[in-house]
């Protein structure tokens, strides 16, 4: 694709739109500059600052939200293009005062430090659990054949699937434990064999 060589003579088209955004079950009507990303719309226009801006280029995952139920990056989509889609941010994850099990596990297991990547990690974890339940494989799934059935969501699978969420504090170990615990609540908090990994020869 050649670099853009804009024709300055083309008729002016509107560069803003009145849109409505569905976020956490609420509908917001707002005019947007087309340049406004979903991330900036959430943070600057709707005061939903839980979604973080770590790099603004799709290279860190801090802005992860759910769009139509799938995790995606709010920094790489324009708000105008998100019209008609159902957006869930970290502010919409808890059930009132009751934390979502993923949130609770992050809190209990110290799955964070500075907290800045945390909303993205949690939204991503929600997506990971859904995607795994839907039978989606990952890059570390040994046998991709559908006949092989879904691989268990073990620590290696969680690590690979969560790799789009960088954490500079290095809370990775506890994050993996938290996702494992939240994904397998029936395991009696045993974190699907992920927690308390013995470090011995």
């Amino acid at each position, binding site marked *: 694709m050649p670099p853009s060589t804009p024709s300055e003579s083309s008729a002016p088209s509107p560069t803003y739109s009145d849109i409505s955004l569905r976020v956490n079950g609420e509908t917001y009507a707002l005019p947007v500059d087309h340049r406004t990303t979903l991330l900036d719309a959430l943070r600057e226009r709707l005061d939903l600052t839980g979604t973080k801006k770590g790099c603004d*280029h799709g290279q860190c995952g801090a802005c992860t939200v759910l769009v139509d139920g799938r995790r995606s990056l709010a920094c790489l989509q324009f708000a105008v293009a998100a019209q008609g889609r159902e957006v869930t941010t970290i502010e919409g994850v808890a059930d009132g005062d009751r934390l979502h099990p993923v949130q609770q596990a*992050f809190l209990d297991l110290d799955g964070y430090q500075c907290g*800045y990547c945390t909303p993205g990690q949690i939204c991503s974890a929600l997506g990971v659990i859904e995607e795994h339940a839907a039978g989606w494989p990952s890059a570390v799934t040994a046998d991709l054949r559908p006949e092989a059935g879904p691989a268990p969501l073990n620590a290696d699978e969680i690590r690979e699937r969560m790799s789009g969420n960088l954490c500079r504090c290095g809370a990775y170990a506890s994050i993996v434990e938290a996702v494992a615990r939240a994904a397998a609540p029936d395991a009696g908090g045993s974190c699907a064999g992920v927690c308390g990994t013995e470090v011995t020869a």
Partner: protein
Amino acid sequence: MTVATGAVTGNRAAGGAVGTAHTRLEGRAKVTGTARYAGEVPFAELAHGQLVLSTVARGRITAVETDAVLAMPGVLEVLHHGNAPRLNGDYAGMLGKADPLLQVFQHERVPHVGWPVALVVAETPEQAREAADALVVRYATEPHDVAFSEAHPAAYGTDAETGGTAETEKALDASEVVVDARYTTPEEHHHPMEPHAAMARWDGGRLEVVDSNQGSAFVADELAKLFSLDPASVRVRSEHVGGAFGAKATRPHVVLAAMAATVLHRPVRVVLTRRQLFSLVGYRSPTVQRVRLGADADGRLRALDHQAYCASSSFREFIERSADFGRVMYGPDAYRSQNHVVPLDVPTPSFMRAPGEAPGSFALECAIDELAEKCGLDPIALRSRNEPEVGVVSGLPFSSRNLLACFEEGARRFGWSERDPRPGVRREGRWLLGSGTAAARFPSGAAPSTAAVTAEADGTFTVRITAADVGTGARTALALIAADALEVAPERIRIRIADSDFGPAMVAGGSMGTRSWAWAIVEAVRALREKLALGGTVPPQGLTARADTGASISALSKKERHSFGAQFAEVAVDVTTGEVRVRRMLGMFAAGQIVNPLTARSQFLGGMIWGLSMALHEEAVRDGATGGHVGADLAGYHIAAHADIPPLEAGWVDDVDEDDPVGIKGIGEIGIVGAAAALANAVWHATGVRHRDLPIRPDRVLAAGAAERPGPEGA
């Protein structure tokens, strides 16, 4: 309410709160997204500032063509050296004389790529960004020099070398075994997940600033000096900080927010882009280190010489003190070390997690491993053979030194005794396996701080201190410390931090924050309990006592005070693709009183992950032709991702310092120290090849291949 000392002992946690696991006080806010960081506090009439940085490495600005940009929609102002208010540059800050980087827009000189040249302020972030992109700045360029090398003609020794040259050379000559190796580490960057952000406004005659920093009192003090304001008229807050690691001192964004708010008479926010972090907030200098060790055949060290080179800018000296690491590690007969600086047309480096110790420990702890190999000794045995009684340079005794206890317990947990010392003999499919170890050390210090503790009329206590919780868990740790000092349950403590109005206090840095703040809180509690012991009623507004630890810190006896640790790592290396995968890591630490085991583990592990990231991934690449970076983003500058992190564990041994009134040593940095060395030593053990240049990239592993060694499994 009548309060006597007896009354405040009610509800005391059995055995005290310190030492038991507590989730973070702000944890709920962080997991629900309600914790607001500096760029997220809403203000009416907020304008948005976007920085424009130089694209040349050396020269001067000849024109800033503002007219076209000022005509763009929403643009309010373009600040640059031709119109910016004058700043005071004649003051001493926390780190010596005023940082020229903070003298924003005060002259037309450009000393490196990424130097601030203009700030565009607009009504919306989109308008500010487009206008900043569109702003034309013209330069008269001059030849630049960004090529770092120990052979650079401008290299100079930074201070008198420690120890004697002749004595060291003699001891090396007399040594039966000598290691002489050159190690390099690249330019590394902090990259906290939250880019620097600040909002400033004038409110009731005061400059009010919300900033992302490691010490709001210091930022307030520096802003007052820069703008020649009464210190009492500046207030800086930093309630939640999205990571810092040394990068979040006073930085240009906060100076510019204050400047623009002053010029425009309205609140202004300045947020740095990820790319801008590469030149505005400090970084770890690249290093070249030559380590020479001389020993007897039995491994007893006769000589240790550590010469370290780092880069700095042309306008400010910052020394990455790598050569200092060995000063208290071992007890050679002859010791010599010196740090050298090469001034270049690059940004000034700064403190980055374990400054000096991180690269210094990589070089020395790899060299020790090489010595162990040459002597045919286990590397832990070699270290225990060289334990010093006192600091080899200072001659001072250690306040506590539990390095060997860390190695003993670490070796037990890691299964070190089962390790076959031979390199390059373990294969599992395409992977060669190996393990390695290294020692860690970081100094334990404290700096004067003030704190206030208030007994409230409702029976609770409020602690106020200008501490910063940059993710360390300081807020929670300090609440536990206050609870124990008051002998009440932590639930009765309200802790308020990160507001310069609470008075001067140490920054969150140097692994000194929690130790310094705890000391002040404990002294304030003591003063409060004395007041309460006199009996009487707590008035409705509460009863407050304050403390300043300046006197008690200076009264502390002179000793070598350090945290110690032992790092263990196991790696898998595919020499046909160059991939290195870490299998597991263990860090054992002797770091004084561990206040909150839950968050302490997180900090230790975070440090170890930094060490892994340093060993295998991190490297900023500078382009000689332009003098700027190539790939200056998080896709080009790799930090470890989830998939890079194996099962890892951190533990600690008892480390009691009877002489210390607080007992806390600080744990923010020791986790990274020695971790890269342990990994590099493990890569050697796996492949038989020493990797002395970080990061251990696939292309380097491929180039080195695997040493041809006959192994039992045909490796």
